[in-house]
């Protein structure tokens, strides 16, 4: 008996002065209340106090009841010896205990294992119901030997307990020696409410277990009474069902699991332990578990040892564990075949670290071994897909970072020699084949070239050309386009690109030749038709600059003959070219007539002036020419039409491939109109106007266009947030970042990939984004574009309620532009001076000088005579 029981064994002695009369016991209710709450120990203490004070039969009965509850409680908690000792003491000391402890006595006797003595009582027909229940409960919880119960001589042969036990013994043996039919599991001899009901369910669970019906087995396990004797098998069964492999099993249960499931379960448990060890990232925990897992695998699945070793090795590499110790724990080096290199490459690729040359080097290792092992051919489509994948990985890195990574890698990389220690000759032979150091995978260009030469297709060439277009040297992209054209001669895209490139360099004859070739391939292609128009316009511009009117006439005739030149506002631009031609010829009358026609076509004299001015700029007209042939004052009808007129001409400019610029002298008026627009303008007009303003660094105007656009709301919000981001000064980088992020999130939700691409490029600061001063966004977190709906709303609200263009924190030094602009309907003409800050000039100069890498930034100069209108 434990020490714990010493206090309880100090039982109170019989009363010294007892009255013998039945009297109410004080605090009895309190003791009963404690017993009802299951607090047997304090109940015993209190009852002892009461009995000391009162010393009457009633207080003794109360105390014995409290002891009975305490004995039950000890029994339930598994302290059976202690329960038995306490029972004996109470039974001996108190005369009233015999009757009151009868039920508890059944429990105590059951623990003796004396089944016969326990069950014999059941033969008494006058046995009180509670005693019968107690005995049955003891059978339910205690009886593990069904054979002994089936043969119990204390019961009659036809006693339901004996017949049920006999049926269960037979069924239990049947389900554990082989498959059984459903009928064998019915067991009508065993009552669902009887003390052996849990056995019936256990037999069924075992049968389902062997039938591999794990769900049914688990269902049975769930309904087995956890206090019943058969419940002792539940942990072992659950372990074998794989649902709980972490539970500590008894020796016999472990033995059962090993006998039934063999060593495979040991491997499962070893692998789970290894997974947990990897999660801790503690070397001291991981290495022993690796060893255990490898040993278990060697016993259970020897054919899987190598594969498991490779996976564990890659995990260890991820955690930077000492490789020699890992190798020792693994029982040898893992095989460095294609499977390993692919796994390792994917591991590095999916890590949070920088992706780039190292990953490509690993994929190159995979490629070598995959080819050698026959996964695919050296020049098969799979190899091409791999090269493309490697190129894409390099494109993930920003241009500047890639250059640094490339040089560092080339300097430090000495190969994977350490990986090839202790490798089979076949593996070493593959590596030995590539003796010459070839770091082709450090640059996207050779990767694209290899991919496109093996498997030439449109997507691959498009990716290659898109990358090459960002290079400052035009010959890189031209080379790609030529490769594309050679590989797939019937694609018009490379020809169009070559045409455009030649056109930009002023090589119009070459451009024309490429266009003719493209027309032969696909004359009805809208891109080809637009290119034809654009090229003829460029040619006309050249002839105008060369002052060759007869050639201009030919060009214009050719242009007018093009069906695509007769749609939208294009005829107006052709007339503007004719106007330019007349200006060169000094034919003021014809010039005026064309100007009037253009104004009619575009619906505004201001639009006509802007179109003529841009066409004149193409032809190299002087300020004097503009002064002479364009009106100095213009009447605007309706009064707020300048924004519409300007936007319409800018759209026309984009359409014909001659990006127009807006005279800075128009700013004041345009800003005024934009401020008072109140939704009277179209989104596309505003966006084009804003972009045109940005071309000449007129950020304030672009900012104003974005205000009007954001006020419109709707689907165009994302586009105007991007316009706002471009229009903001550099030092407002946090605001810019918010606008870009909100634009990406909106684009994502509205599935507008063009917005997303533009925003990503803008944030990366790629040359394609036309701004490149946002270098800090090239940091590692550039790709974090997530924003909640509330955050987007907050950004939109803030931008909508910021109508003023942010000026520099230092006091701006403003200079007036030399020329005045007068609109006849302006109320206050003297306020129309167009301010232009020196900061703007300094910023523009800084942006021009801060070319990114080898890139050259294009900054369009404003039109000549931009302040001379009206």
């Amino acid at each position, binding site marked *: 008996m434990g020490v714990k029981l010493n206090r309880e064994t100090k039982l109170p002695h019989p009363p010294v002065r007892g009255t013998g009369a039945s009297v109410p016991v004080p605090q009895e209710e309190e003791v009963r209340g404690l017993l009802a709450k299951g607090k047997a120990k304090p109940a015993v203490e209190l009852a002892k106090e009461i009995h000391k004070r009162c010393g009457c039969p009633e207080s003794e009965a109360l105390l014995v009841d409290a002891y009975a509850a305490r004995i039950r409680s000890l029994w339930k908690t598994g302290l059976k010896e202690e329960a038995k000792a306490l029972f004996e003491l109470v039974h001996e000391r108190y005369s009233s205990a015999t009757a009151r402890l009868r039920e508890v006595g059944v429990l105590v006797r059951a623990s003796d294992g004396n089944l016969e003595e326990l069950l014999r009582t059941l033969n008494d027909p006058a046995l009180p119901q509670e005693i019968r229940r107690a005995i049955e409960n003891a059978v339910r919880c205690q009886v593990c030997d069904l054979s002994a119960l089936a043969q119990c001589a204390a019961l009659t042969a036809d006693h339901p307990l004996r017949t049920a036990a006999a049926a269960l013994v037979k069924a239990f*043996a049947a389900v554990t*020696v082989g498959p059984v039919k459903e009928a064998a599991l019915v067991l009508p001899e065993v009552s669902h409410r009887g003390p052996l009901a849990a056995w019936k369910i256990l037999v069924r669970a075992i049968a389902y277990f062997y039938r591999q019906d794990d769900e049914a087995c688990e269902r049975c396990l769930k309904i087995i009474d956890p206090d019943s004797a058969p419940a*002792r098998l539940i942990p072992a069964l659950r372990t074998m069902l794989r649902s709980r492999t972490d539970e500590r099993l008894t020796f016999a249960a472990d033995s059962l699991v090993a006998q*039934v499931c063999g060593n495979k379960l040991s491997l499962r448990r070893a692998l789970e332990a290894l997974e947990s060890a990897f999660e801790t990232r503690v070397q001291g925990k991981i290495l022993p578990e690796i060893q255990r897992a490898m040993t278990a695998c060697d016993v259970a699945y020897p054919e899987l040892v190598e594969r498991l070793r490779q996976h564990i090795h890659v995990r260890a590499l991820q955690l930077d564990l000492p490789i020699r110790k890992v190798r020792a724990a693994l029982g040898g080096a893992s095989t460095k075949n294609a*499977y390993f290199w692919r796994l390792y490459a994917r591991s590095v690729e999916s890590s949070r670290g920088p992706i780039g040359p190292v990953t490509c080097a690993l994929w190159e290792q995979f490629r070598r071994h995959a080819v050698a092992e026959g996964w695919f051919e050296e020049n098969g*489509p799979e190899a091409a897909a791999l090269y493309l994948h490697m190129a894409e990985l390099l494109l993930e890195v920003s241009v500047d970072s890639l250059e640094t990574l490339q040089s560092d890698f080339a300097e430090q990389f000495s190969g994977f020699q350490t990986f090839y220690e202790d490798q089979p000759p076949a593996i070493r032979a593959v590596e030995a084949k590539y003796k010459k150091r070839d770091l082709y995978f450090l640059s996207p260009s050779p990767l694209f070239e290899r991919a496109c030469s093996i498997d030439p297709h449109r997507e691959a060439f498009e*990716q290659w050309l898109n990358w090459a277009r960002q290079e400052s040297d035009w010959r890189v992209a031209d080379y790609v386009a030529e490769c594309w054209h050679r590989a797939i001669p019937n694609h018009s895209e490379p020809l169009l690109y070559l045409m455009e490139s030649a056109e930009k360099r002023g090589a119009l004859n070459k451009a024309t030749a490429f266009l003719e070739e493209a027309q032969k391939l696909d004359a009805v292609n809208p891109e080809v038709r637009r290119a034809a128009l654009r090229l003829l316009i460029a040619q006309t511009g050249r002839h105008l600059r060369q002052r060759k009117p007869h050639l201009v006439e030919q060009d214009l005739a050719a242009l007018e003959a093009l069906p695509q030149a007769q749609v939208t506002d294009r005829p107006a631009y052709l007339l503007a070219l004719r106007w330019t031609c007349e200006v060169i010829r000094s034919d003021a009358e014809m010039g005026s007539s064309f100007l009037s026609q253009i104004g009619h076509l575009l619906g505004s004299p201001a639009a006509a002036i802007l179109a003529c001015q841009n066409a004149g700029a193409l032809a190299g007209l002087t300020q004097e020419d503009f002064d002479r042939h364009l009106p100095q004052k213009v009447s605007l009808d309706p009064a707020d039409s300048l924004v519409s007129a300007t936007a319409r001409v800018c759209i026309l400019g984009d359409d014909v491939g001659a990006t127009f610029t807006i005279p800075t002298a128009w700013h004041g008026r345009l800003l005024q109109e934009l401020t008072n627009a109140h939704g009277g303008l179209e989104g596309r007009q505003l966006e084009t106007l804003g972009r045109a303003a940005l071309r000449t660094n007129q950020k304030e105007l672009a900012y104003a266009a974005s205000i009007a656009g954001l006020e419109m709301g709707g689907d165009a919000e994302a586009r105007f947030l991007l316009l706002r981001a471009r229009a903001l000064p550099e030092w407002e980088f946090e605001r810019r970042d918010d606008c870009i992020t909100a634009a990406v999130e909106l684009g994502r939700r509205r599935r507008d990939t063009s917005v997303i691409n533009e925003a990503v490029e803008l944030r990366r600061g790629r040359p394609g984004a036309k701004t490149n001063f946002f270098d800090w966004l090239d940091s590692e977190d550039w790709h974090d574009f997530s924003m909640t709906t509330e955050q987007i709303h907050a950004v939109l609200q803030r931008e909508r309620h910021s109508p003023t263009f942010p000026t520099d924190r230092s006091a701006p030094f403003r200079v007036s532009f030399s020329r005045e602009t007068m609109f006849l309907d302006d109320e206050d003409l003297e306020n129309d001076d167009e301010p232009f800050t020196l900061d703007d000039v300094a910023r523009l100069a800084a942006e021009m000088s801060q070319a990114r890498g080898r890139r050259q930034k294009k900054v369009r100069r404003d039109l000549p005579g931009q302040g001379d209108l009206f």
Partner: protein
Amino acid sequence: MKTNRQANIRLNEDPREILGVPPDADDARIRQAYLLKVKENPPDRAPAAFERIRDAYEVLRDPRRRALHMFLSADPHAPLLSLLPANRQERKFTGPDPWLAVLREK
């Protein structure tokens, strides 16, 4: 060539297993298996299964996607348990004694 074009099959799933074709099956065999599976899982009755089958076929019919799937299907973070064969666990009949020993153990 983005990595996650297919939405209904995971990268670590083998499209050949979904269509029930062996690794060395040629294009004709793959197509035959695809048509059979679609017949068994028409889009109106089993839309989810149909989408998986269609995506698996899309991966297998395009050599570039098939190649990409091959590269990207390796999952270094997959649980080590997934390396074990998925076939049913062997369960030996031992007779009642080892079972009863667990019940009798104190």
